[in-house]
């Protein structure tokens, strides 16, 4: 399956991109995606092991299974207001 990974603010600086399409095996979880990104993209080695993540606009635990076409946003500590 393929998921869209989105990076914002300081995480975008690490990724060097706003968006990456990532191929994952079936039944992969958010944690698997984090591991994949940390392992294969140089700047993302500095992504936290347990970052805040939103799948399809909702915060989810890292154990959440992913589905083909999911939008997975990596959310650095938020600082609105």
């Amino acid at each position, binding site marked *: 399956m393929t998921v869209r990974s989105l990076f914002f603010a300081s995480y975008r600086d690490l990724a060097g991109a706003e968006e990456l399409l990532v191929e994952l095996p079936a039944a992969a979880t958010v944690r698997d995606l984090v591991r994949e990104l940390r392992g294969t993209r140089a700047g993302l080695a500095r992504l936290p092991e347990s970052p805040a993540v939103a799948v399809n606009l909702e915060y989810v635990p890292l154990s959440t299974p992913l589905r083909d076409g999911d939008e997975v946003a990596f959310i650095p*500590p938020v600082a*609105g*207001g």
Partner: protein
Amino acid sequence: MPPAFRVTRDPIDPAALLRDTVAPSDGAALLFWGVVRDEHDGRPVAHLEYEAYAPMAEAKLREIADEARTRWATGEISVVHRVGRLEVGEASVAIVVASPHRAEAYEASRYVIEELKRRVPVWKREGYVDGETEWVPGFIPLAEGGQT
């Protein structure tokens, strides 16, 4: 007009926001007007650069407003957050709470700004007078249940 939950590059018009949020059943409306301050921890700030994950930010603003309306039985609540470059003195966020009674409006307004800071996906980078820029450290939002 229905209440607004918006992320925008345009300056916020407080009068329009008040007008669009207040209904005939309301006896009060409270405007929270968050502005860019000229210093952070003693360091002079020249401007701020805001960014948001807009679709999620708007959904979270609506979610927080719904929680506040239910908890304090207020009228409509609108929340608008700016993105892009903002100069000192410009408003980055506006919250209007309309309510039949004022006490509930104060409580709800406080709740909305505190929760906004905890979980709405918005970030800001400070541009200092000395020319450096830095992402402002923020809150780590928790998934439902609080565990990753």
